Every structure is written in structure tokens, then in C-alpha cells.
């Protein structure tokens, strides 16, 4: 009998039902956040970026960053080019690996104690169904500090910034 359920227990049960209902509502929508990011895009194919730099590793690293943004953060699914709603393509335009940002002067010499990498990329997301450009950002520049000679640490920071820029850009389409 409901009237015999103590008030505290009733409150707990009500809370549990509310939480479950919310969870069900979220789970029932398979692409909960996709609809709020890129219109009509649920699957994407990431094409290899053109690499205009002397650093071949950037081709894979930019692809990993784009995948992290689209799959990991925006909940889109990665698919083949033939079946994807949209394709992501772009170009690594420029790579400056060792820009000095912090110097220490000594006797007759100056030591660079901190440097940064700067990576400039063009990114474009094209809806394959209607051929429209969903999102485009030419000349997107990201950077990352590092302690010499750990250039890769700087690149990791720069790629995380790229991930955030793509997420922000995609969400601005909402």
C-alpha cells in the first residue's frame, strides 16, 4: 500500500524513477548529440590530408585529431567514403616546429628554454548527399609549447587545440 511506504523511501523511489526515465530518454535517441552538431550528418569519412610540409608524420596525426573530434567528442561514426554522410578533407599547410618563446641569457650566448610548434591546417566537412560544405575553416592555426627538444609534446598540445576548434566549429552550426 502506497500510504504505508515511509516518506523517505517514497522520495528515494521517485528520484530513481526520474533518473531512469532520463537515462531511457537519452539511450532511446541513438545520435543524441549528433543532431546538435552538424546538420544531417551522422557518419563521416576522413580522407588523408594533403601535406605541404616536410614532416610526413603530420598526415596521420591530423587525421587522428580529426577522428578524436568527430568520433570521440561529437559522437559521429567513422565510415567509408562510399557510405558516409560527409567527408572531411583538408591540408596541412604549414608547420613551424621550433619557434622560440622563452630565452635565458648567459655569458656570450642565449639559450632557448621554451619553444612552440605552430601548425596551420585547412579543414572542410562536405555533406556528400547534397554536395554542400557543412563546415570549413581555412588557415586554422594551432600551437603548443614544449621544452626543447621534446617537439612531439608541443604537437600533442597543438592537436588537442585543433580537436577543440573543430568541436567548437561544428557546434556553432547548431
Amino acid at each position, binding site marked *: 500500500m502506497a500510504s504505508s511506504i515511509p516518506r523517505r523511501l517514497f522520495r528515494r523511489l521517485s528520484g530513481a524513477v526520474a533518473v531512469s526515465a532520463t537515462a531511457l530518454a537519452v539511450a532511446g535517441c541513438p545520435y543524441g548529440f549528433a543532431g546538435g552538431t552538424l546538420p544531417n550528418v551522422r557518419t563521416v569519412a*576522413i580522407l*588523408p590530408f594533403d601535406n*605541404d610540409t616536410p614532416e*610526413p*608524420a603530420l598526415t596521420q596525426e591530423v587525421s587522428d585529431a580529426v577522428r578524436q573530434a568527430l568520433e570521440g567528442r561529437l559522437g559521429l561514426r567513422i565510415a567509408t567514403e562510399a557510405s558516409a554522410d560527409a567527408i572531411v578533407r583538408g591540408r596541412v599547410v604549414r*608547420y613551424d616546429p621550433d619557434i622560440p618563446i622563452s630565452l635565458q641569457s648567459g655569458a656570450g650566448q642565449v639559450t632557448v628554454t621554451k619553444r612552440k610548434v605552430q601548425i596551420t591546417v585547412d579543414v572542410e566537412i562536405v555533406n556528400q548527399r547534397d554536395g554542400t560544405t557543412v563546415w570549413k575553416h581555412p588557415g586554422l592555426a594551432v600551437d603548443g609549447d614544449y621544452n626543447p627538444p621534446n617537439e612531439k609534446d608541443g604537437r600533442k598540445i597543438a592537436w588537442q587545440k585543433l580537436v577543440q576548434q573543430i568541436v567548437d566549429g561544428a557546434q556553432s552550426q547548431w
Partner: protein
Amino acid sequence: MLWTRATLPRAPTLIRFRWRYQDERVKYAGRGSARVAPPDSMRFDYAGFMNLGAGAAVVIGDSVAWADPEKNFRSLVPAIPMLWAALAMVRPPAADATVSGAELTDSVQHKRRAFWRFAQVEDTLDYVVTDSAGRESVLEAEWRRRGAVVARSRSQLDALQRPASARVDFPEAPARFELTVGVVDTAAVIPPAVWRSRR
């Protein structure tokens, strides 16, 4: 050799392709691009499935200026003259090569076949060009070293005499490299930085 020059693009050209490589141990596939600055320079970029294993190389003539990672590029492209041939381009013969050639014309089928041989002390390169009045032209190449076949390539050309698809076989390995061209951009802008090496 005017004929070899005619096979090269007149302007900087970007060729995008899909590729497959297979030998007795491994099978790889992916996408790639070749940026060709005539007459002799090429930046070759490749990436595997999900853009993994990406690498690049700069080829000047018949030699590799740099490749990164070097081992991957050497596995994928063990014979530079065959890479040019796969992209329907022929390198001029070496200065010390003996050059011979012949041409046959089939007036019934409107086919023309040209044969060229560039023979050096150890290496011989044979080329056969089958030209069907601008349709279904084929460039075949064979590289022999001390009599043994190192590689054979067969490149299909489109109506504009640009590469459409190619297959390169390495009988000794045995291994096969195939590519299918998706885009040929004859107005490509090639930035100077692509030729530099970081290592």
C-alpha cells in the same frame, strides 16, 4: 629523347590515387598522392587504412632524395623507374645507355605500338606503348637486372593520355603494387616546403 619528354606533364601536376600492396606476408591498402614538378621531381605521399602508416618521399629522377620513414617507402616502392612508369611517365635514358626502338602500326585496328629499349651494363629497361588512337592506351615497362626481371608494370592511360590505373609486379619477391587514379590536377600549386627534408 623526345618521346620520354612527351610522357611527362608540362606543368606541376597533382595525382591522387588509391593503392594496394601485397606480398607473401602482408596486404596493405590506402590512398596516396604524387606531386610532379617536371621534368624530374616528385613528392610521393601515402597513407594506409584509416590514414595509419603515413609517409612521404621526394624522388628526383631515378634516385630518392629522402624518404620518411625510409623503410616503409622502400618496401612500397622498391623500383623508382617503375613508379614513374606506373604514373605513365618515362624517365629519359641514362647517358651511357644504348637506346633502340621500333614502331608498328596496325591500320586495321588503328593501333600503334612503339618499343623502346634502354640498355646499360647491368640494367635493361624495355617500354612498350600501345596507342589506340587516344583510347585505351597502355604503357608497359619491364626492368631486368643481369637478365633477371626485377619488375614489370602496366599502366592504363585515359583519353587525355593521363594515368588511370597501374599494376607493378615484382616476380622475385613476389609482390604486387596497384594504383587507381582518382584525380589528376594539372594546375596544381606545389609549395616549396614539400621538397625539404626534416631529417
